């Protein structure tokens, strides 16, 4: 095919290989390649880390990820604090969905101290509600945000407004908009305020409307389709090889969802089926997330309908100032908006954890997988690929 800009087809034989891999010798002095850096500024969720790109023309031939720009040692900070003092620090490990961190740290301490069976019913439902609300606000930003990376900014404005309404609900339920600090060891920190369900339902109706509009705006949009289709394809063979989870795995037909595979809280009482697609490209992943948006709204409605009206919010536990947990280790996981999100937690009988290790999807998605998927991509699509892999740098650098 004749290149319409050049007017002729270049002889690719004379150009350097486009399949250079990490470690290959890329001779910058040959002037056939250029090296550019993406980040580390903060252009959005793809910031806070840096991708070193070797490009030939517009095409990426090699990519190397660099993290370490926002490392604040959260795991170590938690290891130097009492068990109850961990949750305000933990939420900083993934700001996009802070509640997941609270749930993990609370459940780890409960399992190791034997209080996991004692968590009140009411608290379990409220935990589920806050986790699904966190997923919803993440999707309200993430689904239109994928369009944003391809210069379709309007959907982001719609989504962020609705996300703010969900943050209003978080504010009245938990006392804060972003750093909720709601799930603590033993339970949660408050019952539903009066009229919460009605206000939530109002918001959900707005979101129902948004879901239809964003479908028309994004998925019927030829530019979005053209750029997202066939971009950064994840094949089912890659899923186990790279440790791909969540909607990224489901986008290529591998149904992975911790809520179904290893149900926690009361997810087995909810009626849902994780959506999947087959193509494994950016479009498929976004499409799965759009379906998950519908499903999350439905799950919140189910939770609000099934949860008890009243009950204890916290189980009686030892004095938090002297609380010691016997020697032990555990791994607790949940399905975050980005996939399986887990915490490895070790206690040594003292009043502080011996080791806290957070394992989030970005650790593989945004390092090993990203480096390989970027090879051959257009420079303009790098952000789009990073967002489609739900890159969250704070969760890489705990």
């Amino acid at each position, binding site marked *: 095919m004749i290149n319409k800009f050049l007017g002729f087809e270049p002889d690719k034989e004379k150009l350097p290989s486009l399949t250079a891999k990490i470690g290959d010798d890329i001779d910058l002095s040959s002037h056939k390649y250029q090296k550019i850096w993406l980040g580390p500024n903060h252009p959005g969720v793809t910031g806070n880390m840096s991708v070193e790109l070797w490009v030939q023309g517009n095409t990426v031939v090699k990519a190397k990820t660099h993290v370490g720009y926002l490392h604040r040692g959260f795991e170590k900070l938690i290891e130097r*604090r*009492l068990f*109850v*003092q961990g*949750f*305000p*620090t933990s939420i900083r490990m993934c700001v996009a969905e802070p509640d997941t961190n609270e749930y993990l740290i609370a459940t780890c301490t409960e399992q190791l101290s034997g209080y996991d069976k004692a968590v009140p019913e009411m608290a379990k439902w409220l935990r589920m509600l806050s986790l699904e609300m966190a997923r919803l606000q993440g999707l309200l930003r993430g689904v239109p945000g994928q369009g944003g990376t391809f210069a379709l900014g*309007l959907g982001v404005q*719609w989504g962020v*407004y609705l996300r703010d309404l969900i943050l*209003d609900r978080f*504010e*009245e*339920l*938990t*006392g*804060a908009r972003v*750093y909720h*600090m709601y799930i603590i060891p033993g*339970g949660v*920190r*408050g*019952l539903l*305020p009066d009229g919460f369900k009605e206000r939530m339902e109002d918001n959900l109706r707005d979101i129902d409307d948004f879901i239809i*509009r964003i479908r*028309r*705006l994004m998925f*019927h*949009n030829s530019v979005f389709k053209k750029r997202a289709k066939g971009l950064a394809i994840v094949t089912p063979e890659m899923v186990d090889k790279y440790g791909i989870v969540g909607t990224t795995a489901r986008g290529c037909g591998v149904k992975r969802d911790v809520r179904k595979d290893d149900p926690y809280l009361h997810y087995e009482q909810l009626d849902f089926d994780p959506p999947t697609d087959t193509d494994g490209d950016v479009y498929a992943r976004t499409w799965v997330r759009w379906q998950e948006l519908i499903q999350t709204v439905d799950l919140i409605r189910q939770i609000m309908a099934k949860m008890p009206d009243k009950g*204890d*919010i*916290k189980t*009686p536990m*030892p*004095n*938090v*100032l*002297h609380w010691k947990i016997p020697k032990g280790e555990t791994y607790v996981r949940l399905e975050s908006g980005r996939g399986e999100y887990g915490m490895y937690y070790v206690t040594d009988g003292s009043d502080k954890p011996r080791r806290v290790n957070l394992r989030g999807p970005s650790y593989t998605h945004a390092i090993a997988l990203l480096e390989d998927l970027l090879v051959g991509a257009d420079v303009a699509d790098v952000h789009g690929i990073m967002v489609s892999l739900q890159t969250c740098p704070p969760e890489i650098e705990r």
Partner: protein
Amino acid sequence: MPFTAWSKVVKEPVTIKDPLNREAAPRYRGFHDNDVDECIGCGTCEAICENEAIDLVPVDGIETKDGDSGLRPKIDYGRCCWCALCVDICTTNSLRLTNEYKWIDTDPDNFRFVPGVDKKDWYDKKDGWRKPEPNYEFYGLKRVEMGELHPEERDDSFIEMIQGYSKEQAEAEADRCVECGICTATCPAHMGIPEYIKAIRNDDLEEGLRILYDTNPLPEICGRICTHKCETVCTMGHKGDPISIRWLKRYIADQNPSEKYKKILETDKLTKNGKKVAIIGSGPAGLSAAYYLSLLGYDIEIFEKLAEAGGMMRFGIPEYRLPYDQIDKDVNYILSLGVKIHYNTTIGKDITLEKLNEDFDAVFAGTGLHLGRSTRIEGTEHKHVYQSIELLRKITEGEEIHVPEKIVVIGGGNVAMDITRSLARLQKIKYGKVQVTATSLETEEKMPADREEVVEAREEGCVVNPGWSPQRIEIVDGKIKGLHVVQCLSLFDETGNFNPQCNMKNENFFEADMVVESIGQGMDLSYISEPTKEHLEMGPRGRIKVNDYFQTSVGWLFMGGDTIQGPDVIHGIANGHKAAVGIDNFLTKK
């Protein structure tokens, strides 16, 4: 669909119209407020703060007093993360976060402030984060129940009624402590209470015993009958039950066998310094002084008027509250350090105070209050009108006392309850039933006796009928018929002086064959003979003047215990300890 993007053009904008005046949710975690009158400065907020954003600082206008450190939390908004753990753990519920979240200031120093003291605009906001409800606590509010004998098991015997904590119970109770140290400040002996409670949590009872003996050489005794001012001020008492500090102390002492004391406390070999100190009286003050002086290397000789050591602890407090073998455990350990004791030796009769001065380098007198006081109403001269203190002593000595079928006790203090309950036991043994009535000037709420004493007395069948002023004892044909009383309205006048006011129209009559007066005790200082007395400076209310180290104006004579402070055991112990330091300073010319 190109028109989708235009679909909201004609819609009302969704942006907040007046973002500067947007009210946050009622539960919002905004800026701090503190009810400084409710706050006692326990510092638990400081302990829980994961960012070390809170410091306890002195505040103008708030004085340090019993149950209040005088400090208030100062928040550093450069560190605070608004997690509100400080609010959730607050032991008085005084701290809260308002729902105000906007604050602009040009002076960075203003962002470190004392909530409730430094003026801020948001204190009038009622909404904000308060401790969640229901059943949301960071510590146990209820104390671990103490096992005790049922009334029917105890009302005819002098067996100890409080059974003591088991290991699990003690550790559960110790877990409730927040280690604020308000108790330590209030305890007259300033015992390391949070530290020994921590030793219980760590199951290190030997360390616990060492901490007890740092400040109190009578833990078995104090662990049973201390007036526990620590518990009165305990910060946990504001929302729940105070920590059972007294029973926890007893638990440590009970669990350590006396044979091991010397090893644990490292008192196997004490180096002597060759100086001698005489101690008059083997009550708490005398024993405490003896113990701490022994540790300093002094040779100690105690002179005791009665046949056994312990003073009022043995001869005033009934056995069901303080068994004699427990007194012996504490006393014998002190004597095992080489302390000599001369029983049945009265100063002023068997040996003069001046002779002690000649033979010893210094003298400590803790002679206590062993004289009964009388109401001096009509009829008190009758032979069956007794003083509680003499009856209690006789019961301890095993002497037979007069126990008729109907008895009235005048007095509302702990000693009155002691004699009431002791007589009830003797009646139960003798007649199979109890007919003792205790009456006091003070009303039920103001009775000075511990609440549990009153409750337990009633459980044992005694009648406690407070709020009456005794008028006269009716005597017919030489026999007591009963006590006439009138309703007492108030005890003190406006100036705070003791001046009971009565309603003479509301009379009552308590039938009795015997009346016991228990309205306080006086001191007997007749052993201080003229040459010394001349140089003794007196203080207010007939008490002898002493300095901070309990040294009288006669340099070699130190005094402490009930004659100076109190009256209670823990003041005696504290006085004895301080006097020991004073004596050491005096004799080493520090």
